[in-house]
């Protein structure tokens, strides 16, 4: 299975990446190499192994509904490139 240039463009758009043609070409090569690894896995015989929803054998891992303390706001905002009045600031969002 190979990835087409249009599929690269589609995935780039979903990831909000603005790529030029040479970047799209090189990503196609890289992604195809990556998908090639899965072909190797697919070649392995898994006969007799049931499909699973999760790699681990754990089920029902959860926590009781007991609140604990949160970040101090200064700490929460510490890595934000921009913040104002206690809010994370991002460029104006125009819904598409």
């Amino acid at each position, binding site marked *: 299975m190979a990835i087409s240039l249009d599929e690269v463009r*589609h995935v780039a758009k*979903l*990831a*909000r990446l603005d790529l030029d043609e040479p970047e799209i070409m090189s990503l196609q090569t890289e992604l195809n190499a990556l998908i090639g690894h899965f072909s190797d896995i697919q070649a392995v015989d898994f006969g007799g192994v049931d499909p699973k*929803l*999760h*790699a*681990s054998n*754990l*089920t*029902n*891992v*959860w*926590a*009781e*509904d*007991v*609140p*604990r303390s*949160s*970040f101090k*706001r200064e700490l*929460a*905002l510490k890595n934000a490139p*921009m913040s*104002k*009045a*206690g*809010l*994370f*600031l*991002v*460029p*104006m*969002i125009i*819904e*598409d």
Partner: protein
Amino acid sequence: MPNYVTSVGMEVHAELSTKSKMFCRCQVAFGGEPNTRTCPVCLALPGSLPVPNREAIEMVIKTALALNCKIGGTKEESIFHRKNYFYPDIPKGFQTTQYGEENPFGYHGYLEIPTPDGGTKRIGIRRIHLEEDTGKLMHLPSGGSGIDYNRAGTPLMEIVTDFPPDIHNGEEAKEYLSQLRQILMYLGVCDGKMEEGSLRCEPNISIAPEGSKELGVKSELKNLNSFRSVQMGIAFESRRQEAALENGETLLQETRGWNEQKESSFAMRIKEAENDYRYFPCPDLVPMSFTPEYIEELRANLPELPLAKFQRYTQEYGLSAYDANLLISEREWAYWFEEAIEKGGEPKAICNWMNSDFAKMLNEEGITSRQSKITPDHLVELVKLIEDGTISGKIAKTIFAKAYETGDMPKKLVEASGATQISDTGAIKAQVQAVLDANPDVVAKYKGGNMGVKGFLVGQIMKATQGRANPGIVQQLLDELLSS
């Protein structure tokens, strides 16, 4: 011009009333200073690991049971998925949710709504799943957007009706939402506050010519924050679409906003294609499974739901549909009523007091029954005092108002005011005679055939006894003395 049939699919989001968030233990609350309830998990810092809130899962299963659903995770394991999209209200780049037809905690259920003809109609429910709420985005006047992640990660239950839809107009949609809200509040899983956004409804509406097998192009309606706006918004959309089709226009699949002031909808965005969310099982969260014993235990412990209460109140207590509906409107109100009945109150009398004087006083003050000084004990005692003839219904109103104000028990108030009803025939007879003696002209009028003046005489007697004379005995004695 064909007749059009409207079809409405309902997507309801309910914020669950847990104390902590869905995948971290940050506190859940409304409002507050922005970004004061966040942590590495809900801010999606690298290396953080989500752990599901057990209570939230249980709340969804309870809701699914109350809505007659099959339960996911009983036959095969139930899992969480990632719904991938980039938008700053979700810091992880994906929303954790549940995907697929038989994987959610609830599927293939129904809710019965009352119909105008007194019957019920079954509204199919396709799925009930658990996901997480997003942060709040605020567009700043200075340009740019500010984000508050306090709400990010709040457990959010999504309830989706069947396709093709069973709902065909705004009234049914409103009724569905109102029944659903009541059930959620009885289960104690959501506070139902539409104005605060803890219960949000996004109907999608389409119209098609009667008899058509295909549904029309749908629009999704947002910003509906009351039952009224849900009903009006759907009615408006259905008229708007019909007018557009009659004008030969082509409808577009779009998201529209509801403008409450203008009572009309406006285009927000056109949906060109289904978003490509690339759902996949969340590797950070392990599968969940539930034993039949656990599910049956939850089912057995469900509280009596509003519809069952309604039937019991009308059939067992003989209350009118109107009265029963008022009593079940809020869980706390119904429980208050039932406590009074358990304490020996006569259901009809208790109900009348609750739905008239008590409700009026609570509304005026803007408080709930549990916040007032009146307890079920007060009302039970008051109703007994009327039943055994100690006080008249009229005096009871004054006593109730005093008890509401002070919290004193009715018996004590009656004793203190000396307002007990006079049922002693001898004492009343003397008063009646005195009034007749004082008003010979009126008596003459009565005897001359003007029966209407009797009311005046009764009024005079009640006045003379400060309203305490037993009205039945007054009438009887008056008739006797006037005819003698």
